[in-house]
């Protein structure tokens, strides 16, 4: 890791001109990307970007503050339904509805944070898990949320522009994600972020040096829930249709897996993990059409397994990734990155 010599070096956005160069290149690449590829890949990018938002938010809670949450699909659902309902029932414009839904999710995050103050380990995981399941059940029963039939999203207008294709929506998503990721990164560098890290490393020691545990733990839950809520609101418009079954426990687990696979306690890691797992998610949905591997798997399924259950290979691969990452590289993709960087910098020693 690079040594930081003073505070300003730690908080600055770009550590050198090289980083500025790559960042600008990345931005240009992201801006030009939809012009050259098929619509499906734009859809895939939208899906990835939403997972990035949620993973960055969840990482603030799990990676930086050290609180486990198995209920983030609940916040995601609040964001998704909140945005749609604020738009269709209260006739808010899109961005206002999105922020209102994010704040609603943050409110629930704050409320969940209050019992979480005294809980840890298995107790916290079952409490958050129960929260997520309860939210899905309540939403599935309420008439204003469309019940089991789900909801279609209204047409999307931002000011005078009508966003009706994946490409239009992609640009909106990129801007929102950039803002949120930078906000997350900056938050980690401030007093608040340092308080989070102190709580993760030793909460009693943090309390004795004056970190207000009540305040910062609930804040971590609220911020993390806000990110998940915003992600959920945007997700509704990527799919254009939402129903309660989508926001199950499996979704929370996959969010958690993104953070862990990417690397706990690093913004870059959350982004990498979200990209990897959402790419795998979309690719593995039609696993039999992957060249070579697909045919081999088909033959294998026919002779030893069943062909109807072949889509479940997705879960096996997810599980393997999670187990192997935790066994061999607990810092995830970020850990790999750091190790390769150090290896090449000090090569041949």
């Amino acid at each position, binding site marked *: 890791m690079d040594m930081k010599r003073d505070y300003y070096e730690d908080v600055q956005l770009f550590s050198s001109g090289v980083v500025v160069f790559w960042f600008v290149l990345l931005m240009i690449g992201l801006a030009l990307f939809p012009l050259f590829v098929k619509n499906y890949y734009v859809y895939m990018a939208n899906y990835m970007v939403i997972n990035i938002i949620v993973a960055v938010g969840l990482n603030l809670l799990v990676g930086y503050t050290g609180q*486990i949450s198995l209920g983030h699909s609940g916040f995601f659902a609040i964001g998704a339904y909140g945005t749609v309902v604020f738009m269709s029932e209260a006739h808010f414009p899109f961005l206002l509805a999105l922020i209102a839904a994010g704040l609603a999710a943050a409110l629930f995050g704050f409320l969940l944070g209050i019992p979480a103050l005294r809980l840890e380990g298995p107790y916290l995981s079952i409490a958050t898990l129960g929260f997520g399941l309860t939210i899905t059940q309540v939403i599935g029963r309420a008439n204003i949320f469309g019940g089991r039939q789900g909801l279609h999203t209204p047409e999307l207008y931002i000011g005078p522009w009508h966003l009706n294709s994946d490409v239009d929506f992609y640009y909106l998503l990129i801007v929102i994600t950039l803002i949120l990721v930078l906000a997350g990164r900056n938050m980690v560098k401030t007093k608040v972020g340092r308080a989070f890290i102190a709580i993760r490393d030793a909460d009693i020691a943090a309390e004795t040096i004056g970190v207000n545990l009540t305040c910062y733990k609930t804040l971590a839950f609220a911020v993390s829930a806000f990110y998940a809520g915003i992600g959920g609101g945007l997700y509704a418009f990527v799919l254009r249709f939402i129903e309660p079954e989508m926001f199950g426990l499996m979704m929370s687990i996959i969010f958690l*897996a993104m953070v862990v696979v990417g690397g706990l306690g690093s913004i870059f890691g959350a982004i990498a993990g979200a990209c990897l797992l959402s790419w795998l998610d979309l690719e593995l949905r039609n696993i039999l059409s992957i060249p070579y591997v697909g045919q081999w798997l088909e033959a294998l399924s026919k002779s030893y397994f069943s062909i109807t259950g072949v889509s479940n290979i997705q*879960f096996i691969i997810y599980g393997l990734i999670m187990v192997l990452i935790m066994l061999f590289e607990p810092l995830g993709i970020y850990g790999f990155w750091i190790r390769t960087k150090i290896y090449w910098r000090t090569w041949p020693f």
Partner: protein
Amino acid sequence: MLEFIQTLVSGIAVGSSYALMGLAMVLIYKTSEVVNFAQGEMALLTSFLTYMVLEYHGFPFYAAFPLALVFAAFLGFFLEFAVLRRAKEPNILGMIIITIGLEMILMGLVSWKFGADPKTMPFPLSPYDSVQLGSVFVSALEVLNFGVALAVMLILFVFLRYSKLGVAMKATQQNNMAARLMGIRTNRILMITWGISSVVGCLAGLLLSPMTMQPYMMWDPMLKGFAGAVMGGMTSLPGSVFGAYLIGIIENLFGLYVSIEFKSVVAFAVIVLVLCIRPSGLFARHYVKKV
């Protein structure tokens, strides 16, 4: 009144399978501080393999069920030895991730092999046989379930109190380092604990399978069992059994008197409330961290 008693009895019946799952999770949590989310899927794998040998290979019941228990024990040994022991920097979150990963692998394997369509487990007792107790009807399977749960609890109690292995397990739970200094091979004890817990969970799976048999069948009992165990304090075996029965009963009474729709989530709401008041469950002493 009759309706009330009938609901209470079916609450106790459903609580028995929660209690078995809860016991299995508490056994592992006590020895190694691992929350085993794969518990349900370990039982699922065993149940489906039992189904396979019964249905496809024509094994008789008296051979298949003992074999299933032996397989479950070895599955537990294997997972602890091959996966959990290899973790580099074990912490609570990492262990939860590993067991969730195992859960997904096992569930993926089972649903890949058997597909998602429901099966019917051949079983000596039909789920439609019923027994009359006084004026209440109970299905024979529920009685068996309750009996097995009771027997498992008694055996575990005697085992942990009077056998050498059981005492060694308790010693490992209380102080790993001291136990090792006294000449207990704590790694082996952990492995055996996983085996025992897998057998206990597998019993719950086998007893549930005549009623429903599909790849998602163990999720709900496992989560409810976990919730019950947390309610009882996660470190106390009698507490976990009590919590599991309480959840079974609350769930059924809520379904009868308040709303059938929210029946399956009321357990979690109760858990959150209980944890607000007693953060370490009902029966455990509040965990005080030493600095």
